[in-house]
Protein backbone atom coordinates (compact mmCIF):
# COMPACT_ATOMS: atom_id res chain seq x y z
CA UNK A 1 0.00 0.00 0.00
CA UNK A 2 1.53 3.30 -1.09
CA UNK A 3 0.57 5.79 1.60
CA UNK A 4 0.48 9.42 0.71
CA UNK A 5 0.67 12.39 2.98
CA UNK A 6 -2.19 14.86 2.90
CA UNK A 7 -0.70 18.27 2.18
CA UNK A 8 -3.91 19.95 1.02
CA UNK A 9 -4.63 23.23 2.72
CA UNK A 10 -4.08 26.97 2.67
CA UNK A 11 -2.02 29.42 4.66
CA UNK A 12 -4.29 32.04 6.17
CA UNK A 13 -1.66 34.08 7.96
CA UNK A 14 1.29 33.77 10.30
CA UNK A 15 0.98 30.41 12.11
CA UNK A 16 -2.54 29.98 10.71
CA UNK A 17 -3.05 27.06 8.38
CA UNK A 18 -6.31 25.50 7.31
CA UNK A 19 -6.46 21.87 6.23
CA UNK A 20 -8.80 20.34 3.65
CA UNK A 21 -11.56 19.87 6.23
CA UNK A 22 -11.28 23.41 7.54
CA UNK A 23 -9.44 22.68 10.76
CA UNK A 24 -6.99 25.38 11.81
CA UNK A 25 -3.54 24.81 13.26
CA UNK A 26 -0.24 26.66 13.56
CA UNK A 27 1.43 24.14 11.23
CA UNK A 28 0.74 23.43 7.58
CA UNK A 29 -1.12 20.24 6.72
CA UNK A 30 1.40 17.49 6.01
CA UNK A 31 4.14 18.76 8.28
CA UNK A 32 5.36 17.08 11.47
CA UNK A 33 2.52 16.28 13.85
CA UNK A 34 -0.01 17.24 11.20
CA UNK A 35 0.95 14.31 8.95
CA UNK A 36 -2.29 12.67 7.92
CA UNK A 37 -2.58 9.96 5.30
CA UNK A 38 -4.41 10.81 2.11
CA UNK A 39 -6.68 8.06 0.85
CA UNK A 40 -6.10 4.47 1.94
CA UNK A 41 -3.96 3.80 4.99
CA UNK A 42 -3.43 0.73 7.19
CA UNK A 43 -5.77 0.35 10.15
CA UNK A 44 -4.26 -2.85 11.54
CA UNK A 45 -6.00 -6.11 12.35
CA UNK A 46 -9.45 -6.60 10.89
CA UNK A 47 -12.83 -6.93 12.55
CA UNK A 48 -13.32 -10.61 13.39
CA UNK A 49 -9.64 -11.18 14.21
CA UNK A 50 -8.38 -11.65 17.74
CA UNK A 51 -6.81 -8.47 19.09
CA UNK A 52 -3.03 -9.00 18.86
CA UNK A 53 -1.08 -9.43 22.09
CA UNK A 54 -0.14 -6.19 23.80
CA UNK A 55 2.56 -6.52 26.45
CA UNK A 56 4.10 -3.25 27.57
CA UNK A 57 4.61 -0.93 30.51
CA UNK A 58 1.74 1.00 32.06
CA UNK A 59 2.10 4.55 33.40
CA UNK A 60 3.41 3.22 36.72
CA UNK A 61 6.13 1.20 34.99
CA UNK A 62 4.44 -2.16 35.59
CA UNK A 63 4.38 -4.61 32.70
CA UNK A 64 0.82 -5.24 31.55
CA UNK A 65 -0.29 -8.15 29.38
CA UNK A 66 -3.55 -6.78 28.01
CA UNK A 67 -5.28 -10.09 27.33
CA UNK A 68 -4.43 -11.28 30.84
CA UNK A 69 -5.23 -7.95 32.47
CA UNK A 70 -8.68 -7.60 30.90
CA UNK A 71 -9.94 -10.66 32.78
CA UNK A 72 -12.41 -11.84 30.13
CA UNK A 73 -13.93 -8.38 29.75
CA UNK A 74 -14.50 -6.57 26.47
CA UNK A 75 -11.84 -3.97 25.64
CA UNK A 76 -11.70 -0.45 24.29
CA UNK A 77 -8.09 0.01 23.11
CA UNK A 78 -7.33 3.58 22.07
CA UNK A 79 -4.17 4.38 20.10
CA UNK A 80 -3.54 8.06 20.54
CA UNK A 81 -0.71 10.14 19.15
CA UNK A 82 0.63 11.65 22.32
CA UNK A 83 -0.61 12.83 25.68
CA UNK A 84 2.17 15.42 25.77
CA UNK A 85 1.48 17.49 22.65
Amino acid at each position, binding site marked *: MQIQRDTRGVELGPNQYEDAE*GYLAPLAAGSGPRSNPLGEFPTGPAIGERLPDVVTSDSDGRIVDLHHDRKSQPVVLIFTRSVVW
Partner: protein
Amino acid sequence: MTEFEAAGARVYVLSYDEADAQADYKAAHNANFTMLSDPNSDVIRSFGILNTTIPEDDHPWYGIPYPGVYITDAEGVITAKFFENNFTVRPGPEQLLAAVRGEEVLLKERSGAGAEVAVEIELEGDSLPVGISREIVARFSVPEGKHLYNEPVPEGLVAAGIELDEQSDGVIAYTPVTPQTRSMTLSGDGHTLEVYEGDVVLRLPVAQNGRAMEKDDDGRWVSISGRVQWQACDSEACGLPGEQSFSFRVPAEFTVMADMGPGEGRVPSMNGATHFKKMTARRQTEV
Protein backbone atom coordinates in the same frame (compact mmCIF):
# COMPACT_ATOMS: atom_id res chain seq x y z
CA MET B 1 -15.61 5.92 32.60
CA THR B 2 -18.28 4.64 34.95
CA GLU B 3 -20.39 4.02 31.86
CA PHE B 4 -17.66 1.81 30.40
CA GLU B 5 -17.37 -0.01 33.71
CA ALA B 6 -21.12 -0.49 33.80
CA ALA B 7 -20.91 -1.95 30.30
CA GLY B 8 -18.31 -4.39 31.65
CA ALA B 9 -15.49 -3.07 29.47
CA ARG B 10 -11.86 -2.22 30.20
CA VAL B 11 -10.42 0.94 28.65
CA TYR B 12 -6.74 1.16 27.65
CA VAL B 13 -5.02 4.17 26.12
CA LEU B 14 -1.72 3.51 24.36
CA SER B 15 0.71 6.18 23.18
CA TYR B 16 4.41 6.50 22.34
CA ASP B 17 5.00 8.68 25.40
CA GLU B 18 7.21 7.73 28.32
CA ALA B 19 5.45 6.21 31.33
CA ASP B 20 6.19 9.24 33.55
CA ALA B 21 4.56 11.59 31.03
CA GLN B 22 1.49 9.36 31.07
CA ALA B 23 1.53 9.33 34.87
CA ASP B 24 1.49 13.16 34.91
CA TYR B 25 -1.32 13.16 32.36
CA LYS B 26 -3.34 10.72 34.45
CA ALA B 27 -2.86 12.81 37.57
CA ALA B 28 -3.75 16.08 35.80
CA HIS B 29 -6.98 14.60 34.43
CA ASN B 30 -7.91 12.31 37.32
CA ALA B 31 -8.01 9.58 34.69
CA ASN B 32 -8.77 6.06 35.84
CA PHE B 33 -8.21 4.14 32.63
CA THR B 34 -5.02 2.15 32.12
CA MET B 35 -2.37 3.95 30.11
CA LEU B 36 0.12 1.86 28.16
CA SER B 37 3.50 3.29 27.26
CA ASP B 38 5.09 2.26 23.98
CA PRO B 39 8.13 4.57 23.76
CA ASN B 40 9.81 2.59 20.97
CA SER B 41 6.52 2.14 19.08
CA ASP B 42 6.86 -1.66 19.25
CA VAL B 43 3.16 -2.29 19.83
CA ILE B 44 2.23 0.36 17.27
CA ARG B 45 4.46 -1.42 14.71
CA SER B 46 3.10 -4.86 15.61
CA PHE B 47 -0.39 -3.58 14.83
CA GLY B 48 0.89 -2.22 11.51
CA ILE B 49 -0.38 1.28 12.20
CA LEU B 50 2.86 3.27 12.49
CA ASN B 51 2.44 6.60 10.70
CA THR B 52 4.96 6.05 7.92
CA THR B 53 4.26 9.39 6.28
CA ILE B 54 6.61 10.90 8.88
CA PRO B 55 10.34 10.52 8.10
CA GLU B 56 12.36 8.56 10.62
CA ASP B 57 14.54 11.55 11.47
CA ASP B 58 11.63 13.93 12.02
CA HIS B 59 11.73 14.20 15.80
CA PRO B 60 9.83 13.96 17.96
CA TRP B 61 6.93 13.16 15.63
CA TYR B 62 8.24 9.90 14.17
CA GLY B 63 6.82 6.91 16.03
CA ILE B 64 3.20 7.96 16.35
CA PRO B 65 0.41 5.69 15.12
CA TYR B 66 -2.44 6.42 12.81
CA PRO B 67 -4.74 7.13 15.75
CA GLY B 68 -7.67 4.81 16.14
CA VAL B 69 -9.70 2.62 18.45
CA TYR B 70 -10.34 -1.13 18.60
CA ILE B 71 -13.31 -2.63 20.42
CA THR B 72 -13.28 -6.31 21.36
CA ASP B 73 -15.81 -8.69 22.81
CA ALA B 74 -15.23 -10.79 25.94
CA GLU B 75 -13.22 -13.30 23.87
CA GLY B 76 -10.82 -10.60 22.74
CA VAL B 77 -12.08 -10.66 19.15
CA ILE B 78 -12.27 -7.27 17.43
CA THR B 79 -15.88 -6.26 16.87
CA ALA B 80 -15.44 -2.64 15.77
CA LYS B 81 -12.72 -0.20 14.70
CA PHE B 82 -12.60 3.58 14.46
CA PHE B 83 -10.03 5.18 12.16
CA GLU B 84 -10.26 8.40 10.17
CA ASN B 85 -7.66 10.04 7.94
CA ASN B 86 -7.69 13.32 9.82
CA PHE B 87 -6.20 12.90 13.27
CA THR B 88 -7.95 16.11 14.32
CA VAL B 89 -11.19 14.20 14.61
CA ARG B 90 -11.67 11.27 16.96
CA PRO B 91 -14.65 9.34 18.20
CA GLY B 92 -16.59 10.56 21.21
CA PRO B 93 -17.34 8.28 24.16
CA GLU B 94 -20.94 7.78 23.03
CA GLN B 95 -19.74 6.06 19.87
CA LEU B 96 -17.34 3.81 21.71
CA LEU B 97 -19.98 2.88 24.26
CA ALA B 98 -22.47 2.03 21.54
CA ALA B 99 -19.86 -0.22 19.95
CA VAL B 100 -19.03 -1.89 23.25
CA ARG B 101 -22.66 -2.64 23.95
CA GLY B 102 -23.33 -3.72 20.40
CA GLU B 103 -26.50 -2.49 18.84
CA GLU B 104 -29.36 -3.89 20.84
CA VAL B 105 -31.89 -5.22 18.44
CA LEU B 106 -35.19 -4.54 20.09
CA LEU B 107 -37.91 -6.87 19.02
CA LYS B 108 -40.75 -4.43 19.02
CA GLU B 109 -44.35 -5.16 18.33
CA ARG B 110 -44.82 -4.87 14.63
CA SER B 111 -48.00 -4.28 12.75
CA GLY B 112 -48.70 -6.54 9.80
CA ALA B 113 -47.29 -6.31 6.31
CA GLY B 114 -47.97 -3.07 4.53
CA ALA B 115 -47.26 -0.91 7.54
CA GLU B 116 -44.97 2.03 6.94
CA VAL B 117 -41.33 2.41 7.87
CA ALA B 118 -40.84 4.37 11.08
CA VAL B 119 -37.64 6.32 11.71
CA GLU B 120 -36.29 8.03 14.80
CA ILE B 121 -33.34 10.40 14.48
CA GLU B 122 -31.15 11.61 17.30
CA LEU B 123 -27.76 13.17 17.88
CA GLU B 124 -25.90 10.99 20.34
CA GLY B 125 -24.24 13.33 22.80
CA ASP B 126 -25.21 16.66 24.26
CA SER B 127 -22.44 18.82 22.81
CA LEU B 128 -20.11 19.05 19.82
CA PRO B 129 -16.58 20.06 20.78
CA VAL B 130 -14.12 20.81 17.97
CA GLY B 131 -12.74 17.60 16.53
CA ILE B 132 -14.64 15.13 18.71
CA SER B 133 -17.10 13.22 16.62
CA ARG B 134 -20.64 12.44 17.68
CA GLU B 135 -23.06 10.35 15.71
CA ILE B 136 -26.35 11.17 14.09
CA VAL B 137 -28.32 7.99 14.63
CA ALA B 138 -31.28 6.98 12.49
CA ARG B 139 -33.28 4.03 13.83
CA PHE B 140 -35.62 2.48 11.31
CA SER B 141 -38.35 -0.04 11.98
CA VAL B 142 -38.85 -1.88 8.75
CA PRO B 143 -42.08 -3.93 8.55
CA GLU B 144 -41.73 -7.64 8.01
CA GLY B 145 -41.35 -8.60 4.38
CA LYS B 146 -39.89 -5.22 3.48
CA HIS B 147 -36.33 -4.03 3.14
CA LEU B 148 -34.26 -0.87 2.68
CA TYR B 149 -31.29 -0.51 0.34
CA ASN B 150 -27.64 0.13 1.03
CA GLU B 151 -25.53 2.09 -1.49
CA PRO B 152 -25.01 1.67 -4.37
CA VAL B 153 -28.44 1.48 -5.97
CA PRO B 154 -29.47 1.72 -9.60
CA GLU B 155 -31.18 4.84 -10.85
CA GLY B 156 -34.75 5.15 -9.61
CA LEU B 157 -34.13 3.63 -6.19
CA VAL B 158 -33.19 5.57 -3.06
CA ALA B 159 -30.68 4.03 -0.66
CA ALA B 160 -31.14 4.51 3.06
CA GLY B 161 -28.75 7.13 4.32
CA ILE B 162 -28.10 10.23 6.39
CA GLU B 163 -27.01 13.43 4.66
CA LEU B 164 -26.02 16.82 6.02
CA ASP B 165 -27.41 20.01 4.53
CA GLU B 166 -24.89 21.85 2.43
CA GLN B 167 -25.29 24.95 4.56
CA SER B 168 -24.13 23.00 7.64
CA ASP B 169 -20.87 24.87 7.08
CA GLY B 170 -18.03 23.74 9.31
CA VAL B 171 -19.72 20.44 10.17
CA ILE B 172 -18.07 17.49 8.49
CA ALA B 173 -19.48 14.01 7.96
CA TYR B 174 -17.16 11.02 8.35
CA THR B 175 -17.41 7.34 7.46
CA PRO B 176 -20.96 6.03 8.04
CA VAL B 177 -21.43 3.06 10.35
CA THR B 178 -23.94 0.65 8.87
CA PRO B 179 -25.30 -2.74 9.93
CA GLN B 180 -24.81 -5.96 8.04
CA THR B 181 -26.70 -6.33 4.82
CA ARG B 182 -28.17 -9.25 2.95
CA SER B 183 -27.65 -9.69 -0.79
CA MET B 184 -30.81 -9.76 -2.81
CA THR B 185 -31.10 -10.30 -6.54
CA LEU B 186 -33.90 -8.46 -8.26
CA SER B 187 -36.08 -10.73 -10.36
CA GLY B 188 -36.55 -8.15 -13.12
CA ASP B 189 -33.10 -7.15 -14.30
CA GLY B 190 -30.91 -9.45 -12.23
CA HIS B 191 -29.27 -6.59 -10.28
CA THR B 192 -27.83 -7.77 -6.97
CA LEU B 193 -28.38 -5.23 -4.21
CA GLU B 194 -27.49 -5.08 -0.55
CA VAL B 195 -30.53 -4.72 1.70
CA TYR B 196 -31.32 -4.01 5.33
CA GLU B 197 -34.20 -5.68 7.12
CA GLY B 198 -35.89 -5.45 10.51
CA ASP B 199 -34.65 -2.88 12.99
CA VAL B 200 -31.98 -0.97 11.12
CA VAL B 201 -29.61 1.51 12.78
CA LEU B 202 -27.56 3.84 10.59
CA ARG B 203 -24.94 6.08 12.16
CA LEU B 204 -23.18 9.07 10.66
CA PRO B 205 -20.19 10.42 12.62
CA VAL B 206 -20.00 14.21 12.44
CA ALA B 207 -17.49 16.68 13.82
CA GLN B 208 -16.98 20.41 13.58
CA ASN B 209 -13.80 22.22 12.63
CA GLY B 210 -14.32 25.31 14.76
CA ARG B 211 -16.00 27.35 12.03
CA ALA B 212 -19.51 26.23 12.80
CA MET B 213 -19.79 28.03 16.10
CA GLU B 214 -22.34 30.72 16.79
CA LYS B 215 -21.84 32.82 19.88
CA ASP B 216 -24.49 34.36 22.08
CA ASP B 217 -24.84 35.34 25.75
CA ASP B 218 -25.31 31.70 26.75
CA GLY B 219 -22.13 30.52 25.09
CA ARG B 220 -21.12 28.89 21.82
CA TRP B 221 -23.45 26.77 19.74
CA VAL B 222 -23.32 24.63 16.67
CA SER B 223 -26.23 23.70 14.41
CA ILE B 224 -26.40 20.49 12.45
CA SER B 225 -29.14 19.88 9.97
CA GLY B 226 -29.82 17.40 7.24
CA ARG B 227 -32.14 14.64 6.20
CA VAL B 228 -32.59 10.91 6.38
CA GLN B 229 -33.75 9.21 3.21
CA TRP B 230 -34.93 5.73 2.44
CA GLN B 231 -37.18 3.66 0.24
CA ALA B 232 -38.90 0.51 1.40
CA CYS B 233 -39.60 -2.31 -0.99
CA ASP B 234 -40.88 -5.85 -0.76
CA SER B 235 -40.29 -8.63 -3.27
CA GLU B 236 -43.06 -7.25 -5.48
CA ALA B 237 -43.00 -3.48 -5.39
CA CYS B 238 -41.51 -0.36 -3.90
CA GLY B 239 -43.14 2.39 -1.91
CA LEU B 240 -42.44 6.06 -2.49
CA PRO B 241 -39.12 7.32 -1.18
CA GLY B 242 -39.33 8.63 2.36
CA GLU B 243 -37.50 11.57 3.83
CA GLN B 244 -37.27 13.13 7.27
CA SER B 245 -35.35 16.28 8.10
CA PHE B 246 -33.48 16.87 11.32
CA SER B 247 -31.96 19.87 12.99
CA PHE B 248 -29.96 19.91 16.20
CA ARG B 249 -28.46 22.86 18.05
CA VAL B 250 -26.02 21.88 20.77
CA PRO B 251 -23.33 23.58 22.85
CA ALA B 252 -19.94 23.79 21.12
CA GLU B 253 -17.21 23.34 23.67
CA PHE B 254 -13.51 23.71 23.32
CA THR B 255 -11.64 20.46 23.08
CA VAL B 256 -9.37 19.68 25.96
CA MET B 257 -5.82 20.21 24.78
CA ALA B 258 -2.40 19.41 26.13
CA ASP B 259 -0.80 22.15 28.17
CA MET B 260 2.08 23.09 25.88
CA GLY B 261 1.28 26.77 26.34
CA PRO B 262 -1.39 29.20 27.44
CA GLY B 263 -4.72 29.32 25.66
CA GLU B 264 -8.43 28.74 25.95
CA GLY B 265 -9.39 25.15 26.68
CA ARG B 266 -6.00 24.16 28.12
CA VAL B 267 -5.99 21.68 30.95
CA PRO B 268 -4.23 21.94 34.31
CA SER B 269 -0.53 21.48 34.16
CA MET B 270 0.91 18.07 33.48
CA ASN B 271 4.41 19.44 32.81
CA GLY B 272 3.78 19.09 29.09
CA ALA B 273 6.64 21.33 27.94
CA THR B 274 9.14 19.49 30.16
CA HIS B 275 8.07 16.08 28.87
CA PHE B 276 8.17 17.35 25.31
CA LYS B 277 11.77 18.53 25.65
CA LYS B 278 12.80 15.27 27.29
CA MET B 279 11.11 13.16 24.62
CA THR B 280 12.65 15.18 21.80
CA ALA B 281 16.11 14.90 23.30
CA ARG B 282 15.83 11.14 23.79
CA ARG B 283 14.66 10.55 20.24
CA GLN B 284 17.40 12.71 18.76
CA THR B 285 20.19 10.89 20.56
CA GLU B 286 18.84 7.49 19.57
CA VAL B 287 19.57 7.88 15.89
